[in-house]
C-alpha cells in the first residue's frame, strides 16, 4: 500500500493531497486538514512548543473531524514559500504560519491557492483568504513588571529583546510602565540581540544586563538561556511563551504562557461552519484566555502575588490597562494624556519607548 501511494504522489502533483498522510483513517466526510509551519523546533519549550500544544488541543477537540500537520524549523526567508505551498498543494485548507517573518510568503501562496485559508501570526498584511492573529502578550508583561517593581532590590531591571518591532516595543513599555507604577524611579535596561533564538548571544546579553546592575531580567527571546544565567548568578527572571521553571527552579518567578488552543479551535470551527472570513485581525488576551500566567515561584511574597493577580483580574474584566496615561516617551514628551488609554491601533504600530527605558 505504501509503494502505491508513493508512486501516485510522485506522478500526480495535484492529486498529492491525502496520500503522504498515510496511516490516517479515512472518514466518510473528508476531515478538515489544517497545516502549521513553525519557526523553531517543537521541543523548544517556548514559542513553537506553545503553538504545538494549541495544535494538539485543536485536534483532540474535534475528534477526527480535523487533522493537522506541522513542519518545524522553517526559516523566515524565501525558503518558507515552498513549504507553505506544499501544505496547500497537499490539501490543507486552513494553514497557520506562526511567525512574523512568514508574512509575504503567506500572501504569495495565498494568491496561488484562493480556496485555502491562511492565518498569519503577529502580521499586519491581509487578503481575502488571509487573516492575521496575535496575542496581547503585553498584558502578561504588565504582570511581570508589577512583580519586578516590587521585588527588585537594585532598582534596575532588564529586558532582553529581539528586534525593535511593535510586539517587542509593546512588551518593553508594558514592563516598564507597570514596574514604574510600583517604583517610579525604576530603570529598565534593554538589549536587542537581533534574533528570536540564539542561546549563546542571549546568555551573553543576560550577563551584560546583570553586570549593569539588573537583578530581574525579562526576555522576549525564545530560549531559556537567559534564565539559566539568572539561576547561575542567583538573580530572578521570567519564562517566555511557556513555563520554564525546569530550567531555573530558583530564578524563574513566573512566565507568560501562550495558550493558542481555544483560538485554533474557534478558527477550525469557523471553517467547518463556513463562517470563516479573511481580511481581519484577531487579538486575544487574558480575557479570552490566550495569555495565562504560570504558577508563581515560592520566592514571590504573598503581597506581590496579590498585586500581580490584581493586574490579571483587571485585564480580565477590562478595568485595567497598563497603557493608561499619562505616558511620556524617552525624550519626555507626553504621548498619552492622563486617564486616557492608548488606542490598540497606535499600540499595534508603536516604535518608541517610554521614559525610564535605557536602550
Amino acid at each position, binding site marked *: 500500500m505504501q509503494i502505491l501511494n508513493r508512486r501516485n504522489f510522485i506522478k500526480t502533483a495535484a492529486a498529492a493531497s491525502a496520500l503522504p498522510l498515510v496511516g490516517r483513517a479515512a472518514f466518510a466526510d473528508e476531515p478538515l486538514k489544517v497545516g502549521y509551519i513553525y519557526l523553531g523546533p517543537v521541543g523548544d519549550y517556548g514559542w513553537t512548543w506553545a503553538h504545538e500544544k494549541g495544535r494538539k488541543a485543536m485536534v483532540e477537540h474535534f475528534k477526527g473531524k480535523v487533522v493537522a500537520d506541522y513542519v518545524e524549523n522553517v526559516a523566515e526567508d524565501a525558503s518558507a514559500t515552498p513549504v507553505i505551498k506544499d501544505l496547500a498543494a497537499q490539501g490543507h485548507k486552513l494553514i497557520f504560519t506562526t511567525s512574523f517573518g512568514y508574512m509575504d510568503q503567506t500572501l504569495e501562496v495565498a494568491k496561488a491557492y484562493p480556496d485555502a485559508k491562511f492565518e498569519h501570526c503577529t502580521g499586519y498584511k491581509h487578503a481575502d483568504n488571509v487573516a492575521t492573529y496575535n496575542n496581547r502578550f503585553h498584558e502578561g508583561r504588565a504582570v511581570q513588571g508589577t512583580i519586578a517593581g516590587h521585588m527588585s532590590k537594585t532598582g534596575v531591571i532588564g529586558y532582553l529583546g529581539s528586534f525593535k518591532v511593535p510586539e517587542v516595543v509593546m512588551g518593553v513599555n508594558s514592563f516598564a510602565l507597570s514596574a514604574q507604577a510600583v517604583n517610579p524611579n525604576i530603570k529598565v535596561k534593554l538589549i536587542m540581540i537581533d534574533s528570536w533564538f540564539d542561546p549563546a548571544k542571549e546568555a*551573553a546579553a543576560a550577563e551584560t544586563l546583570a*553586570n549593569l546592575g539588573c537583578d530581574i531580567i525579562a526576555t522576549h527571546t525564545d530560549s*531559556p538561556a537567559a534564565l539559566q544565567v539568572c539561576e547561575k548568578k542567583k538573580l530572578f527572571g521570567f519564562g517566555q511563551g511557556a513555563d520554564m521553571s525546569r530550567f531555573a527552579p530558583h530564578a524563574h518567578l513566573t512566565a507568560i504562557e501562550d495558550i493558542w488552543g481555544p483560538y485554533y479551535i474557534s478558527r477550525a470551527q469557523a471553517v467547518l461552519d463556513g463562517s470563516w472570513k479573511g481580511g481581519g485581525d484577531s487579538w486575544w488576551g487574558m480575557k479570552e484566555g490566550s495569555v495565562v500566567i504560570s504558577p508563581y515561584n515560592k520566592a514571590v511574597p504573598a503581597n506581590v502575588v496579590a498585586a500581580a493577580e490584581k493586574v490579571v483580574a483587571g485585564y480580565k474584566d477590562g478595568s485595567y490597562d497598563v497603557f493608561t496615561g499619562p505616558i511620556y516617551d524617552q525624550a519626555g514628551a507626553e504621548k498619552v494624556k492622563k486617564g486616557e488609554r492608548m488606542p490598540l491601533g497606535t499600540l499595534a504600530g508603536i516604535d518608541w519607548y517610554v521614559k525610564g527605558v535605557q536602550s
Partner: protein
Amino acid sequence: MTLEFLIAALVTVVNVSTPILLAATGELVVEKSGTLNLGVEGMMLLGAIAGFAITYIAGDPQWSDSAPWLATLAPWLGVVAGAVAGMLGAMLFGVLALTLGANQVATGLALVIFGTGVSSLIGAAYVGLALTPFDQIFPDNLAQDPVLKLVFGYSPLVYFAFLMVGAVYWFLNRTRAGLVLRAVGENDVSARSIGYSVIGVRYAALAFGGAMSGIAGAYFSMVITPLWAEGMTAGRGWIALALVVFSGWRPGRLLGGAYFFGVFMTLELYAKASGFSFLPSQFWASMPYLMAIVVLALMSARESGGAEAPACLGKTFMPDA
C-alpha cells in the same frame, strides 16, 4: 565605572573568548604541521552535541540512583565525548585530505556542512533539555567574590584552555616531537627523507586539533548555555581560524588575540545596553571581523608578508614512491 563592574565585564570577556582560544590552540598545531583544516566550525558543533548528549545521559537520574559517582563524573565524560567527536570529524578530514590527497579547502568546508547537519540530526532529540552548567570549580567564597572571581570564578575548561596554550608552547618549542612537527610543516619532503612519517605526524596533529575544537564546542553546550540549539556555535569556529593567522602561529599571541576578540564581542553588547550609541550597534558587531582583517594586513605588512606561515600549509603531500 567601579572595580566590581570592571571585573564583571572582564569575566564576561574571558567566558566569551575561551571557546575561540580552545579551538584556535588546536588549529594552530594542525597548521604548524602543514595542514589547513577549515572544518573547525563543524568539529565544534559535533563536540557540542556529543558533550551535551553524554553529559545528559550520564547525569540521568535513573543511572545516578544506582551509581551516584556517575552524576559527578557526567560533565567530565561529556568533555571527553566532545573531544572524541571532534577528533572523529578531524579523522574524516584526514582520510580525505591526507590519505587521498583531496583539496584541503573544499574538504574543510565539507566538514563544516557535514558537522552542522549531523549535529542537528542528533541534536533533534535533545532540544528543550537542560543540564547543570559545568561551571565554577572553586568554592563559593572564592568563586563568587566580586573581585576574586576574576581568577577563581570560571569553569574548569577555562583553566584547561590556559594550560593548553602553555603546553602547546612548550611542546612546539622545547620538545623534540614539536621540532619534528614544525619541520614537517616547513619542509615535508626533507622531513620525510630524514625518515619522519609526514602523514603520521599530520594525522596526530589533526587528532589534537579535532579534540580541542570538540572541547571548544562542548563549552557552548555545557558552560555558556547548558542546552542544545542548532548551530549554537554561531560562526565562532571561523573566528578561531582567523585568530590563528592573527597570532602569527605563535601560541603566546593566541592568548592575547583571543581576549582582544572577546573584548570586541563584549563591547557590542555593552554598547547596546548602555545606550552608548553614537555609532550604530551593527558597527560594534562588525568590529571583531574588521579588526581581524586589519590586524592580518598590518602583520603581513610589517613582517615581510606572511613569512611566518608554515611553508607547507595547505599543500597536499603525496609522494609518488
